[in-house]
């Protein structure tokens, strides 16, 4: 199996050739959407959901101008992530509690999704909030399912209601609710048998339980590793029962969990909780934004984009761009750029947030080292304003003075001057290219540092 490289990296590659363009063309976006599509499919998001989704993203990407300090790739990722988070819904881990207790929660799902464990976790969650839950064993089919719930209940010190395997689940549910009313349990969690959604007989049974006890919340328990079929499962449970929410389980695995997006898309119901482990307290509120990044396999690139947006002064960037075009870029501006970069936070952090190996290769050549940057700063600050604006005048004796003033060596000063000359040369070329392409109408993006 080939290691899946992250979407961010792929998009970066797609857009590599576009550096300097102010606006994405339809074809560029098309190509980017292909990468987005593949990434989502690799994450098991349902095909149809992916299709609709990429259509939405494409529309937005085409309509938007690329922001000054960002590359088109980042811009597209940002749109993808925003749309994905939006599609996933807000944080809604709330369970509607009945005005007249007990609140009845019914868990349904396929075999092996993790209903019994989740029932225990959910009851435990409410117990910690001071409620008095009752667990109800309605799975009379799977061998030892009742026993499993009893063990789980025992560990959590939560009572378990069961009538054995010979009583119908509908009857068990009905009696359990009465039991809760008589025993002061303000919350009832019904653990039902796992079933195939195409098994009409068993689906009918769930409907009967619903009619008998009128649960306040019917939650579908979905294994996060589910593939394309998640859609039809969610659809038929929703059609038969009218779901109120979803609980994703086994999210502590290494699955990308695209099923979350699929079930949300077809049911329109919020994902309320995420099962994060085998321990009975491993149930967490669901975070749509984190899930979005996870599905995309993107690391923390979004945080980085936000940081960059927050710390780059648009006006300054414009001015810099003008200077570059007119080849007025000086060491002072260089220093300015360094300071802007520093305001984004420690360099290691920034590098850590960058996705993928493609980036790392470039960064290795950059040799960015916090200390080195300090030296660069010191060297520039030890120059006279005339020297900063016009580095050509820096001769041997000036170099010695600068080195002494900044506590560095002449070699360091030389290296900086050389780097700067190269940077300026490169920028000049870029400027000419951009100028030739766009007749100076749209500027190019200058690299952060180099």
């Amino acid at each position, binding site marked *: *199996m*080939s290691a899946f490289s992250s979407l961010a990296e792929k998009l970066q590659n797609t857009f590599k050739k576009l550096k300097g363009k102010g606006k994405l063309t339809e074809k560029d976006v098309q190509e980017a959407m292909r990468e987005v599509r*593949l990434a989502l*499919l*690799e*994450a*098991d998001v*349902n*095909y149809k959901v992916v299709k609709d989704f990429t259509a939405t993203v494409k529309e937005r990407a085409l309509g938007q101008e690329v922001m000054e300090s960002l590359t088109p790739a980042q811009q597209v990722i940002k749109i993808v992530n925003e749309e994905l988070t939006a599609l996933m819904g807000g944080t809604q881990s709330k369970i509607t509690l009945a005005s007249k207790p007990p609140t009845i929660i019914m868990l349904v799902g*396929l*075999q*092996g*999704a*993790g209903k019994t464990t989740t029932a225990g976790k959910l009851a435990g969650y409410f117990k910690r909030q001071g409620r008095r839950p009752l667990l109800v064993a309605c799975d009379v089919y*799977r*061998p*030892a*399912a009742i*026993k*499993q719930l*009893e*063990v*789980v209940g025992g*560990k959590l010190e939560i009572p378990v209601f069961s009538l054995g395997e010979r009583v119908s689940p509908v009857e068990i549910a009905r009696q359990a609710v009465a039991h809760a009313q008589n025993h002061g349990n303000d919350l009832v969690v019904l653990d039902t048998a796992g079933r*195939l*959604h*195409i098994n009409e007989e068993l689906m009918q049974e769930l409907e009967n339980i619903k009619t008998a006890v009128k649960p306040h919340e019917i939650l579908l328990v979905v*294994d996060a*590793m*589910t*593939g*394309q*079929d*998640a859609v*039809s*499962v969610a659809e038929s449970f929703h059609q038969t029962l009218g779901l109120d929410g979803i609980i994703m389980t*086994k999210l*502590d*695995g*290494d*699955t*990308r969990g*695209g*099923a979350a997006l699929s079930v949300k898309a077809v049911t329109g119901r919020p994902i309320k909780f995420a099962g994060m482990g*085998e321990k009975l307290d491993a149930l967490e509120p669901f975070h749509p934004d984190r899930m979005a990044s996870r599905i995309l396999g993107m690391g923390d690139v979004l945080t980085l984009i936000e940081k960059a947006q927050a710390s780059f002064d648009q006006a300054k960037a414009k001015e810099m761009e003008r200077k570059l075009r007119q080849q007025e870029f000086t060491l002072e501006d260089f220093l300015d750029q360094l300071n802007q970069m520093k305001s984004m936070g420690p360099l290691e952090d920034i590098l850590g947030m960058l996705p993928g190996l493609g980036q790392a290769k470039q960064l290795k050549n950059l040799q960015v080292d916090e200390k080195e940057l300090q030296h660069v700063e010191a060297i520039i600050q030890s120059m006279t304003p005339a020297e900063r604006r016009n580095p050509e005048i820096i001769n041997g004796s000036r170099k010695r003075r600068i080195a002494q003033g900044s506590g560095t060596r002449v070699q360091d000063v030389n290296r900086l001057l050389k780097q700067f000359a190269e940077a300026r040369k490169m920028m000049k070329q870029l400027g000419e290219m951009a100028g030739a392409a766009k007749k100076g109408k749209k500027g190019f993006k200058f690299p952060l540092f180099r």
Partner: protein
Amino acid sequence: MGFFEKLKAGLAKTRAGFVDKVNTLVTGRTKIDEEFYEELEEILIQSDVGVETTLKLVEQVKASAKERKATSGEEVKDILKEEIENILSAKDSSLNFQEDGLTVIMVVGVNGAGKTTTIGKLAANFKSEGKKVLLAAADTFRAAAIEQLEIWAERSGVELVKHQEGSDPAAVAFDGLKAAQSRQADVLIIDTAGRLQNKKNLMNELNKIFRVLNREASGTPHEVLLVIDATTGQNALSQALVFKEAANVTGIVLTKLDGTAKGGVIIPVADQLQIPVKFVGVGEGIDDLKPFDAKDFVSALFSEEG
């Protein structure tokens, strides 16, 4: 109902999605163009075949179609069937059964895949063949897992070796092996706890069970079966990869093929990791676990009549 019918019935829903789409796509199609292949791609991806293997398959089909000058959709469909069958039958899917002496089978997988149920069915199968079967309850973690296996053992009338919940699973496996040897059993089947493959310590624990067996009786376990739920998506690849590393998986049991789940993920698993599918579970009954046959599987997947 014979197995082939059952498999067909089990796959009816899968076919409803998969084959109907293929059929709609191929019938009456005289022009095989890019659009045709794109739709083919779509169908494969919707069956959980995965992007990489889908692209590869479609490329192969394209090349063969060109080579054989296939012009109708029907011909291309046959080529696709052939390609899938080739992938699925690349490795021997018969069980490594020891004709004389003990055969040790270890069953592994993620949580909820259907390990215990699979073992129940396997035990019943061997028992009906007149074999002496012993089960070892090495899932000492999940609540009531031992009881669940006990019920299966009773149902199929086989013996069970167990410890307390929470005890060392490697010790249970060890005891199981010793008991099987002294009682001269033909088959020992070891149940293990479900574990997500990214849990390092749990995978180490699994590796320890494997090593203990291997140390006590060389050549054992003869089979390590990874149980994969047919509804699983691309994560099955990671499961197969990591479980293979920890416990040298020799075959796959594809369970819950009786839903609408396509189980298509076994195609990339077989293709990329060279692990054969050995059994499929096509129903909830005790005798609904059957040896895997690539030809039957593909035929059932593509068969025309209901």
